[in-house]
């Protein structure tokens, strides 16, 4: 049981909640996630990244977008209510060290998991360049927080309603062309965005780390539902990830698998952002 301590709507479908979870707050590191379930008997288990935590207060912060039944129900819960099942922190923490110049690219809701990683990278002494992007102005989240951390900060929207009118891959490409090129790129966002970020950096041979958010059931290395192809190997996001070398991830397969149940789902909530970007890419 985890009590909801605060709740804030960040944009049309995006919410931030602070939860009472002292054990998770104490153990978690950047890059890790939790799984929650809203009904112990019939609920679905969904993985969400931990956007922030305060070990002293014993709280964690989650940021999520309403894309299905569980996230919709969660968005309807109020401060003081309790989430029956909350488990974590899961996944391997991000490997943090002083790499040099790191480009942190966040797309839409992906800025939430990116935030603690960017923060940790900054604290480790890296030169942090941040690119955050969304379809339109009102979907930009955590701008102020990211700005404070970043040595260089770029914001873009697909429709040009805020910041630069571009996909995040455009400034990313420009940065890769600099000399010296960046030491590393971390891209987190919708699968299609991570795919194209990886494709953008591939010719420059800049190591690109992505954080995958696949379908999961247990999240502890038992069911195998989260498997992805990394190079020629099968890997499991819950215990081997969630972070992988973007140049090795088979994104097309991962996206097909993410849609495994789409046509069966009772509540057909589609991921708007993902679909929009996909449509856009298809038009190119």
């Amino acid at each position, binding site marked *: 049981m985890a009590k909801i301590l605060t709740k804030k709507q960040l944009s049309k479908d995006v919410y931030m909640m602070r939860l009472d979870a002292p054990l998770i707050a104490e153990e978690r590191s950047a890059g890790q996630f939790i799984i929650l379930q809203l009904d112990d008997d019939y*609920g679905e288990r969904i993985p969400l990244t931990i956007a922030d935590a305060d070990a002293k207060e014993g709280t964690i912060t989650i940021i999520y977008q309403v894309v299905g039944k569980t996230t919709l129900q969660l968005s309807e819960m109020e401060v003081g209510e309790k989430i029956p099942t909350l488990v974590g922190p899961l996944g391997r923490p991000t490997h943090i060290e002083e790499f040099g110049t790191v480009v942190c690219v966040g797309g839409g809701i992906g800025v939430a998991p990116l935030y603690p990683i960017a923060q940790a990278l900054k604290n480790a002494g890296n030169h942090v360049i941040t690119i955050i992007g969304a379809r339109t102005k009102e979907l930009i989240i955590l701008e102020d927080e990211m700005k404070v951390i970043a040595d260089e900060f770029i914001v873009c929207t697909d429709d040009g309603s805020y910041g630069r009118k571009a996909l995040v891959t455009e400034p990313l490409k420009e940065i890769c062309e600099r000399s010296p090129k960046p030491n590393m790129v971390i891209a987190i966002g919708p699968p299609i965005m991570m795919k194209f970020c990886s494709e953008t950096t591939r010719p420059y041979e800049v190591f690109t780390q992505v954080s995958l958010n696949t379908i999961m059931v247990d999240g502890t*290395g*038992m069911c*195998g539902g989260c498997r992805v192809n990394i190079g020629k190997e099968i890997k499991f996001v819950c215990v081997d990830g969630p972070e992988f070398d973007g140049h090795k991830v088979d994104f097309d397969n991962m996206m097909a698998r993410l849609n495994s*149940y789409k046509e069966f789902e009772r509540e057909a909530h589609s991921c708007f952002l993902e679909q929009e970007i996909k449509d856009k890419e298809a038009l190119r």
Partner: protein
Amino acid sequence: MSHHTPEQISEEAKKLIVAYLDKIDTMKPKERTKIPPQEMPAQDPEIRSHNLEEVALGYTMEQARIEAMRCIQCVKKNCIDDCPVKIDIPRFIEYIAHGEFQNASDVMKEANLLPAICGRVCPQETQCQSNCAVGKALKEVDKSVAIGRLERFIADWERATGKISIPEVKPETGKKVAIVGSGPAGLTVAADCRREGHHVTIFEAFHKLGGVLRYGIPEFRLPNDIIDKEIDVLKAMGVEIKTNFVVGRTRKLTDLMDKDGYHAIFVGTGAGLPMFMGIEGESLVGVFSANEYLTRVNLMRAYDKGHADTPIYVSKNVAVLGGGNVAMDAARMAKRLGAENVYVVYRRTEVEMPARKEEVAHAKEEGIEFYFLQNAKRILGNEKGRVKAMECLRYELGEPDSSGRRRPVVIPNSEFILDVDTVIVAIGNGSNPLISQTTPQINANKWGNIIVDETQKTSVDRIFAGGDIVLGAATVILAMGEGRRAAAAINKMLAEEIEKEKASMN
């Protein structure tokens, strides 16, 4: 095989028992072996393949007594030797024959706290019933005394009385034991350590208890209610339970000792990541590990489409790869979820199948088709990346391999296409990676299984392990056997410490 209704079987037994009651103590072994083996009453296959209710309904009282009278009380008692937890089988059977069910139950509980579960899921034909003198005399292991069914009968009888006896707990010792995982191994350790008066906490990663008993074994074979009742006994004994707690992640294993003051830990985290065939097309949408498929249905209740939020793949033609109990469970579950055709594809023959015989028989009755000496070569997908067919190869049996089973050898150019939309891979599991990932000081082998000594102790002081995390994929009863051994070692260690502490105080 035509289906006998439970009523027919019950009537038959009522008539039959009359003749035996008078000579219950005087029958010669030869006469006993002539008593007809009692058939397990079961739900009608047509009906049950559309529901999740338990398939095997359990013996009636008369049936149990008749079956028990088949035991010749031989001197060899192979059954006890072949039982991983050494239940005094002849003794409890003798009590059943005489209708003294409470006594039978007490005998069973001396060695096994989870008889309702074991009676249902143990592979008796390879354990207690494998060397039964009656089966040997009749030259057919299937005609051994049905020990498992009798065990189940007694457990069910006790539950029906509503007076489940709670084992006695010794005075509190002040020592704390942490159990990681609430599967069969962990539950056994919890009971055995609690009995000695130690404070016992079970940490479970899921929101429900039981481990593989809950997420793996379907309700039609092991109803959740049975698991709940067995766990209620532990709760009544005072075992503390923490769900949604992933030891290794929520708290480091060693922190349980260093920070939380536990004096001993038992790791029973079970089997882990499912294995795949490594063939083309295994990443297609519609290919599942049996673990995932069964967890969605069993634990997350995806069968209840009106209520459950967890989806399950809608299938018409399903291929299940593998020949173990998990493969049988997945195949039968797919049928229950509405698949029209379910094929079990196994590269050896029926004789080599590791599944319990009763499950195979039940699966056949339910219309599951078996493709023996065949195996998947690759899985074919459509333009959307979904399974549309599976290409298979035919095999023949060659020389025996290291396991003693004849090695299947592929027949060249024997490819053929099986029209399926779903493939469930049930060829076994690796080990759960979490503990070795987060506690590298515990020695594990190259497959990730924790290495233990003969008392189940790991390379780290005070940390013990057992069940599938040690054995690889094994059985419920072997896990319980390991749990029993670990608990004995933990209890011994703690008792010695208590003695020492007392001595130093004087």
